């Protein structure tokens, strides 16, 4: 296996032949972890697409590395009335086709989004709060909402602006072919090979700081081992989503550099809160006439039985932090002091006995095995831990398509899921995950544990109508604390986002998991 000297020299010579040295210095080759499905920034709400779009297009409001809103195409924004947001736009910005960026483009973009054809995940979820658009002057725009809607600037971080000169309803195909792939971003689109790569060139007329790279080759390498191998062999300069299994080795490699930050993605276990649940039986497999998971003490016991530090250390290899709430420290509406329960199997047994299950019960723990980092391994580890407090756990990991279909139908009793809070604040998970299922309001849309707590709902209602940031944060913190004390679900950990790159590069790791070539710099 070990190369002799001559082989190394030969290898280096061959490697050098494949790319001319000049191109190499100016080109950044990115290894992305998931395939981009479209160049149309309004076609599919899918994080790999958003990650790529940030090179070519720009939103009014952007997120900084810690997922706090910062100005991008808008210089500033404020509430001029309870239901009217006013945005002042950045002057002197030009699209890749040379046209000026103005308020007309913003109005055009907001108008187009709900009409994109066949969208499997429409961006309208980020614009539906807007009831009307008022262009005040070329660099001022007012967005009216039906009700007080404090989250609008955050929703708009997902809305990438395209020029209104593209005409009525440009087709998604024309973005993929490059004809309409026109934005204001730091790179301009060159070519897109579906499932393989996207090539981009620097936008030399960019209004902001110029990227260090003349050319970006954005390659899609979904296979974890292949992506790491591509970095090790020098095929790419920069990879995202470094597999946790390779972190230790890569961090010791002097030719490489790693960047990491805590993600907004939390991994948690849902417990079924319905009166009857499909996969819980008595200790000898007998049917139960009720669902033990509706007892708070049982939920507390199950949470307490989990050694989160062991999972983080052994399964995640340090690439996560144990968590007791939706968001990591430093986020808006993070609750200081709300930590996960300490690992205490003895107390967990006591709680189970107190709840009337001295001999435990049988449960099936389900989860995907191809969706989240180490998902299948995590549920096996939890299965070990639950078995030790007398809850005999059958672990069942299946592929995501069949898993999520069954989860939506309520076919599970306990199951693993993840949630990436793209808004960076707690109203988003509270509304989607925790609030009582109310289709009319769009609440509890993915409340797959059928949790319902009127007090939480009430606090959330008030919070969403509160424009004042400090007051709203407080309400969200109260709602979070209530839900967590009630063990609405069992939080496990927040993942860490890890990038690896060749030595001599730096990257400010982003909490939102996106990879941006313009933020990769040669080390000074």
């Amino acid at each position, binding site marked *: 296996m070990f190369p002799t000297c001559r082989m190394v020299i030969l290898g280096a010579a061959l490697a050098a032949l494949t790319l001319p040295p000049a191109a190499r210095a100016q080109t950044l080759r990115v290894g992305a972890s998931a395939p981009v499905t479209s160049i149309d920034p309004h076609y599919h709400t899918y994080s790999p697409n958003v990650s790529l779009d940030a090179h070519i297009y720009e939103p009014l409001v952007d997120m900084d590395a810690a997922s706090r809103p910062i100005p991008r195409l808008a210089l500033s924004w404020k509430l001029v009335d309870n239901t009217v947001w006013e945005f002042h736009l950045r002057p002197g910005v030009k699209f890749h086709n040379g046209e000026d960026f103005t308020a007309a483009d913003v109005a055009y973009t907001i108008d187009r989004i709900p009409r994109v054809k066949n969208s499997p995940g429409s961006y309208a979820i980020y614009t539906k709060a807007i009831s009307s658009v008022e262009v005040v002057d070329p660099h001022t725009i007012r967005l009216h909402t039906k009700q007080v809607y404090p989250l609008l600037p955050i929703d708009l971080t997902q809305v990438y602006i395209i020029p209104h000169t593209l005409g009525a309803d440009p087709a998604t195909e024309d973005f993929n072919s490059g004809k309409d792939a026109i934005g204001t971003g730091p790179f301009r689109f060159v070519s897109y090979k579906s499932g393989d790569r996207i090539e981009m060139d620097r936008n030399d007329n960019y209004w902001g700081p110029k990227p260090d790279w003349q050319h970006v080759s954005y390659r899609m390498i979904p296979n974890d081992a292949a992506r*790491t191998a591509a970095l090790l062999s020098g095929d790419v300069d920069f990879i995202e989503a470094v597999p946790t299994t390779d972190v230790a080795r890569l961090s010791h490699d002097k030719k490489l550099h790693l960047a990491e930050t805590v993600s907004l993605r939390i991994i948690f276990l849902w417990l079924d809160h319905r009166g009857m649940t499909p996969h819980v039986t008595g200790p000898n497999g007998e049917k139960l006439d009720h669902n033990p998971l509706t007892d708070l003490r049982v939920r507390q016991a199950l949470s307490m039985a989990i050694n989160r530090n062991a999972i983080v250390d*052994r399964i995640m290899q340090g690439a996560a932090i144990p968590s007791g709430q939706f968001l990591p420290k430093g986020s808006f509406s993070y609750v200081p002091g709300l930590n996960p329960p300490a690992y205490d199997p003895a107390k967990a047994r006591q709680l189970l006995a107190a709840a009337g299950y001295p001999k435990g019960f049988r449960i099936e723990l389900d989860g995907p095995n191809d969706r989240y980092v180490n998902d299948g391994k995590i549920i096996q580890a939890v299965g*070990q831990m639950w078995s030790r407090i007398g809850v005999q756990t059958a672990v069942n990991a299946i*592929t995501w398509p069949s898993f999520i279909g069954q989860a939506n139908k309520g076919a599970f009793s306990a199951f693993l899921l993840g949630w990436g809070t793209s808004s960076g604040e707690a109203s988003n998970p509270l509304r989607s995950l925790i609030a009582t299922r109310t289709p009319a309001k769009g609440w509890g849309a993915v409340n797959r544990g059928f949790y319902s707590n009127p007090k939480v709902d009430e606090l959330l209602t008030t919070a969403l109508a509160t424009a004042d940031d400090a007051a709203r944060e407080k309400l969200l913190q109260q709602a979070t604390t209530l839900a967590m004390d009630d063990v609405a679900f069992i939080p496990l950990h927040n993942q860490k986002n890890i990038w690896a790159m060749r030595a001599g590069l730096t990257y400010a790791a982003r909490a939102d998991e996106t990879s941006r070539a313009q933020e990769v710099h040669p080390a000074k």
Partner: protein
Amino acid sequence: MSGMAEIAPAAPETPLQRFVRDFTSNRLAVGALVVVLLIALAAIFAPWITPQNPYDLAQLDIMDGRLPPGASSAAGMTYWLGTDDQGRDMLSGIIYGLRISLIVGIGSALIAGVVGSTLGLVAAYAGGRVETAIMRLVDLQLSFPAILVALMILAFLGKGIGNVMIALVLVEWARYARTARGAALVERRREYIEAAECLALPRWRVLFRHLLPNCLPPLIVIGTIQIARAITLEATLSFLGLGVPITEPSLGLLIANGYQYMLSGQYWISFYPGLALLLTIMAINLVGDQLRDVLNPRQQR
């Protein structure tokens, strides 16, 4: 292709003796047969010879995860081949994994063999529309690539050893049918069948008592090779995430799990199961190869 019955009379030994002598003429094949037998014994007696039940979550501890070969657990047990990320003893895992691989391989080959050969024999013997119908079905089956069919079937059925076997049987039966029909067509024209038919023996009796035994040699060869194929296919499917459940890993799944640790130097998690898989398949293939040489009369001339 002629049966052995025809060759045997000239020799003073029985067909079985001759078969044994022919088979043992290749020392490599004998070695392979010994390996196959050892693996089979280990798999059968797995619960009694392994230090741990690798499928019982309560016996595993992630704190013992990814220990190198020779390391000891907190409880004082030695992991001779190391542990995987769940703290599963690799030696126990491999032996249990072999068990699953063999069950899946032999089970699917047997079922597919019985179903396929019966259909093939019936086709050859009945002729006419029955034959056309069966053989069209065979062509249809063979016109789909095995891996894709198995992929789709498992996508529909979900994971599980039983489902993997169903998928493999559906993928494999057609080869037996084709082989059985081919062999039977040759045998049918022989005198002994004509004689049996003249005696007005029942059809099923002619089919299974006279035709089948003489078509067996090529079927045995195919069967051996198919066992190896089935084991490989199961490993590949598990590697793609569609095979057996993760709490009961087969060799393919053990390799897939360890595959992520290769680059970080924890080679043992996928190296040893890989070695075990390779050894098993090679041994079966070697035995099958020798069987082919021994049972193929054309090369004996």
